[in-house]
């Protein structure tokens, strides 16, 4: 039986998808700004953040209205609480994209330290995780959500590798590289944090779909 409430839940889903596509675009552009040393892309990312912030508020208000007026239970309740958590994760990802864009601006103003190899790889993992977390959400795909959660380990390992290289091969050997190495270290940190937020969304998908709380409980996977 289709309820009027179902229309509202579809609307909520649409809001999340709109927000997710804006966030994916911001991450993509921030990484491109860094790779291509393109200042205009970095500026575009910074400018797009306001819209994403507003969308987060809109989604939260909509969720609160639904809770107050429809008194949802069971899967409806799980979906709405997931939406409220996921929009916060998406908003944080957008902030991290802004952080990456700002680091890119700092780096563009200086000569390149080294060719970027592993950072684009880490960016690729992050973008894939975000995309798959959102796909898992759309399709209520628990297997895909689990895949996202596992990919996070790969991201962590790559971040450690890049950071070690920047510290020991550059900063320790030649202190003058620090102004270029530190922003790159921060970029790896931002990308890894994006992966963490994608993991949160994947965990929420599992809760929404199977009512299993796997956040902080990987053994329940």
């Amino acid at each position: 039986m289709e309820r009027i409430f179902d229309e509202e839940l579809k609307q909520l889903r649409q809001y999340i998808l709109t927000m997710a596509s804006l966030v994916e675009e911001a991450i993509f552009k921030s990484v491109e700004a860094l790779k291509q040393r393109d200042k205009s892309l970095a500026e575009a990312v910074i400018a797009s953040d306001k819209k994403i912030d507003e969308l987060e508020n809109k989604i939260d208000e909509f969720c609160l209205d639904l809770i107050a007026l429809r008194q949802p239970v069971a899967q409806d309740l799980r979906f709405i609480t997931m939406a409220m958590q996921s929009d916060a994760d998406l908003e944080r990802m957008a902030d991290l994209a802004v952080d990456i864009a700002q680091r890119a601006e700092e780096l563009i103003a200086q000569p390149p330290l080294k060719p970027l190899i592993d950072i684009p790889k880490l960016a690729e993992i992050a973008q894939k995780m975000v995309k798959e977390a959102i796909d898992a959400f759309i399709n209520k795909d628990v297997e895909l959500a689990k895949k996202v959660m596992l990919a996070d380990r790969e991201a962590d390992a790559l971040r450690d590798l890049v950071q070690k290289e920047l510290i020991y091969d550059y900063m320790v050997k030649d202190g003058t590289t620090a102004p270029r190495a530190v922003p790159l270290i921060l970029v790896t940190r931002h990308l890894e944090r994006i992966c963490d937020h994608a993991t949160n969304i994947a965990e929420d998908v599992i809760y929404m779909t199977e009512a299993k709380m796997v956040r902080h409980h990987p053994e329940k996977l």
Partner: protein
Amino acid sequence: MSKIIAKDLNLWYGAFHALKHIHLDFDERRITAIIGPSGCGKSTLLRVFNRMNDLVEGVRMKGEVLIDDKSILDGGFNDLVKLRKKVGMVFQRPNPFPLSVYENVIFGLKVHHLAKKNDFDAIVQESLESVLLWNDLKDKLRKNALGLSLEQKQRLCIARTIAVKPDIVLMDEPCSALDPQATLKIEELMQRLKKEYTIVIVTHNMQQAARVSDDTGFMLLGELIEFGKTVEIFTAPKDKRTEDYITGRYG
């Protein structure tokens, strides 16, 4: 600890199979809500526990129902008066007798000779205090109970039920005749009463079940489809039929 246990309970009204293979285990001093659409058998199930269905012509039961490990369908409680002292009931419409407040509270005690006359005053005070009516009515104990507000009447009926010191209080839609404010007060009262009594409530109001109960059972077409902790039933029910009912998809 288990207070009420049913094993493969079946009940027929004539040829109509109203309760089908019910297995349940209600813990003591908890509030258990039974929910389900009209005609699902929830009131029938409630009325099994104090054998109110016996009054219905053509009723037949099979299976076992134990209260404190004693069978109530045979042997253990041959004396229905004893059973109904142990298992009190509160109905949908507040139904005080056309007597004074005082007489209403001691009615059961007098009928069953459960207390000495000298103790009546103390029991009336204690019972009315339990339902938070004492302060309002202590100077109006001789007033006719029919003149009370609906909510006060329902509280008085609960006081009358607990005056005979039952273990279990059955409530059949106890708030459906009350406005939201009175409903809230009765719900608060239930939370207080569960410290001493095992309460089973049948309700159409799912928000009420969610608010007041510790455990919830969902019934459909005479079957107990799902039984569990209320918080689990309302966040993550296991059976799709429960999910469809509580989210309003059933129909």
